């Protein structure tokens, strides 16, 4: 009963997150100046058709409540609306671009995690603190670079690609946290005792550290997923990857509300599901400790 309640609360949390994102996006775009404009109005040939389309939309979505009602009605029928920019169903646009983004996201996060984990394990195995300022400095320099600038550097120098940029971003962020986490864990009394007893580093890591740090590692992995989602937009725009980030950027530049709402919904749902997994890991860990 208790487990079912916990699951229900978490699912409600994800749903409310998605609804909040949708509501916020619709309200913002609907109150934006120039929402009821149509590019066809600029063209003399289509001006009357453009004006008629605007009037029709104004009649249908005259108030904020009406706009919300139209959107919700569409979602309940499985439709995310029609793109104002491309004049095709939004679901079609999402389907076409989801594959490129998923591939980039999963590959980038996985590569970033492997890199940061390998570096952390390698560097935390040392018994001295020599070289710590150098590690801190190089991490700080990489963290200080905006994703857009990093992507541009890679593009111009023809070194690496979008996945490399995402992987590097994740690796640097996670390395900083992982390294600190592991160094602290290695200084714990029971680990020091195990080391004094002659246990190998690999065994300490497997038997003590990975078990105790499991939940934190899972949370960190989910957090890096959220970071990668945010970095998706500049990376896809700069490398011209036809994914969801580029679609969202195009929609934002062209005030394509249905597309922007749909992409924000998808991203919010992804973050919600990721946080669900992270919380599940922490709860399991707490239950094991209890």
């Amino acid at each position, binding site marked *: 009963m208790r487990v079912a309640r916990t699951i229900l609360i978490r699912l409600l949390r994800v749903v409310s997150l998605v609804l*909040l994102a949708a509501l916020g996006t619709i309200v913002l775009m609907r109150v*934006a100046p120039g929402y009821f404009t149509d590019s066809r109005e600029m063209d003399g040939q289509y001006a009357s058709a453009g004006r008629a389309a605007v009037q029709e939309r104004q009649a249908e979505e005259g108030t904020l409540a009406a706009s919300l009602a139209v959107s919700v009605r569409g979602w309940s029928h499985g439709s995310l609306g029609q793109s104002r920019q491309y004049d095709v169903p939004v679901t079609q646009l999402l389907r076409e671009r989801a594959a490129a983004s998923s591939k980039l996201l999963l590959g980038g996060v996985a590569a970033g995690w492997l890199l940061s984990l390998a570096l952390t394990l390698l560097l935390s195995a040392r018994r001295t603190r020599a070289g710590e300022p150098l590690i801190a400095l190089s991490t700080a320099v990489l963290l200080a670079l905006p994703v857009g600038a990093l992507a541009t550097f890679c593009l111009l120098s023809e070194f690496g690609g979008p996945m490399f940029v995402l992987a590097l971003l994740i690796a640097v962020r996670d390395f900083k946290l992982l390294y600190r986490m592991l160094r602290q864990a290695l200084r714990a009394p029971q680990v020091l005792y195990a080391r004094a007893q002659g246990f190998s580093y690999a065994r300490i890591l497997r038997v003590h550290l990975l078990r105790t740090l499991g939940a934190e590692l899972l949370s960190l992995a989910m957090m890096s997923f959220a970071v990668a989602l945010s970095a998706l937009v500049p990376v896809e725009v700069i490398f011209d990857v036809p994914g969801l980030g580029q679609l969202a950027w195009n929609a934002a530049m062209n005030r394509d509300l249905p597309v922007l709402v749909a992409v924000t919904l998808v991203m919010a749902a992804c973050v919600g599901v990721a946080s669900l997994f992270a919380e599940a890991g922490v709860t399991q860990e707490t239950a094991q400790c209890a």
Partner: protein
Amino acid sequence: MRLAFTVRPVAWVLLAFTVLAALWIVHRSPMDYAMQDRDHISEGRSAQHSTGTDELGRDRTVRTAAALLLGLAGAVAASALASSLAVSVGVGAAFAPVWIAKSLMYLCDLFLTLPWIFLLMTVRASLPLNLSPAHSAELTFFLLALLGAPVFVRVNYARAFAVRNAEWLLHGRASGLRTMQLARRHVLPHLRPLFLSQFLIYVPVCLIAEANLGTLGLGVTQPLPSWGSMLQELESSAMLAGSHWVYLPIALLVVVLLMLELVLFEVDA
């Protein structure tokens, strides 16, 4: 810890020196950040332009100095506003009925889990197209402040709630002090170190966020220089072939962020 005491003042001095140098350049240079020298477009270092010009012939030194000042001023203002908002909401929630406090914290948590770049893009894209450059800068940093406040609300609430339930505060309440008096005179001073920490932490975040937003063309509008609009120049390969001085803004941004990181060194240690 001893290293932190050595590094921190040095970082402050370097930061102050950089800001003063930027101020000096902007005020003493005969060029304006928007002035176009059409005879020297996309040039490298020359007698008139010490670090070259951009694709419209504008002096890069002056524009970089102005971008530094604008970026830092905007980030400091946004960070101060975000921290103040977080403290206000945190203290307000601590003194409010439990259901209001819980609802506020839930909303903040939900807000935190949203992918911020999509939200920022939505908000920025929904602004009027005829926005003046100064207004676009104000609004961009104002949005960053609004989006940053929920990050710090929970920790402020927890601290304010602990102080509110302290015995000495109960004594103050029993002595007839009103809620506003308690909050202003007794709770807020206890949140000052927290305010300072979150303020310092959020300044570099605002700088990077503005740079990322500007790279996408959704930040401060031209001709006002900002880190984001300066970084957009990097996308022009022709400019890069012409002069390596085009890397100046990004190099300076990294240096400023490193200095801010060193300022925060003590917090980390």
